[in-house]
């Protein structure tokens, strides 16, 4: 099933995007934002979120492996 952004409707959210939603909004979230909408919602930048994803991956977080 293709996962859609709850805000803009963008389709096909990838594993990293779903992972960063879970990491920053809570593991139990059922709806997801695309990277740009998540950055807007959290008042940050997409680049900052991408940095976070890389750091989580390096730490071995299973959401990004």
């Amino acid at each position, binding site marked *: 099933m293709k996962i859609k952004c709850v805000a803009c409707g963008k389709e096909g959210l990838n594993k990293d995007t779903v*992972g960063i939603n*879970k*990491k*920053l*909004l*809570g*593991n139990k979230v059922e709806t997801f934002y695309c990277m740009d909408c998540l950055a807007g919602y*959290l*008042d*940050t930048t997409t680049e*900052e979120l991408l940095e*976070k994803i890389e750091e*989580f991956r390096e730490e*071995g*977080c*299973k*959401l*990004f*492996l």
Partner: protein
Amino acid sequence: MIYADNAATTKLDMDAFEAMRPFLLEEYGNASQPYSFSRTSRRALKDARMTIAECIGALPEEIYFTSGGTESDNWAIKMGAGCEGEVITSSIEHHAVLNSCRALERAGRSVSYLPVTREGIVCLETLESVISERTKLVSIMYVNNEVGSIQPIRELARAARQRGSCFHTDAVQGVGHIPINVQEAGVDMLSASGHKFNGPKGVGFLYIKNGTGISAFMDGGSQERQYRAGTENVAAIAAMAVALRKNCLALGEAREHLGRLERMILDRLRLSGVDFIRNGGGKGIPGNMSLSFRTMDGETLLHRLDLKGICVSTGSACDGTKTQVSHVLRAMKVPLEYARGTIRISLGVRNTEEEALRIAQSLIDILK
């Protein structure tokens, strides 16, 4: 950026930095060399030892410079435990102590890990129920690093002394933050770390009371009266002494300031209706607040605060599938639904009221 993780490390004090400068540039002589060029380095070591001793009520010859709290703890426990007898510690110690004790266990030694109260306190009765004539070493931290609880060190040390046991305290979170006098506390050994009180990283000390039977941890040259080999880091040692003296002179002022900031954050959170508990009951070291929130993982909170430019620590870690609650929160029996959502805000004297309000408001914005 708002830095509220002062229990992890602190900003280097500017006077401490200035104290380092000559020994990094012009005065680089090895303090162990007898020529006059090294005289300034030797004097700096002597002065630093004296300053540090004064700050904790020790004699200068009872101060041994190390690379930090971890080395001090390793030395005190692995060498202080001797060759036989039992060791007692608590279940909420820093890993420098816990893993040193595990090493002793692997070598066949018996180690008891004392439980703590809901407030994160090791009770005298608990120690007395376990300690015996066979106990060689008792090691209980002065201040817990996660929740800030202050242990009844004087009573615990007295109980150890009465049984003829050696008493060590990991005071890394306490030195430079609360008044500590080794004679009044009655401890045999005390660990401290420079960067926890606005000194540089990579330097610390171990207080060893005269007459304590402990052997050298590092073998090599004859530095530190043959107890801790290795060329002294004169710059860092000089800076550590400056930082400690400054902190000790301003303890009352800092306590008042940090108490005010704590109250501002807690009042705001309570008024907002956010569901949280404060671990340790608030009787701990000033500025250290372990807060557990019911509705969100601590790690999520940490990263959300980070995105707002606020640095704090967490009491839990998530690997993407499972949230691991820290050994301290588990020992304190913090309810799991709260323990998962734990962050540690550790304020420092440089934090302002405006920053405290921003921290509280950011938490409310995230949690509401």
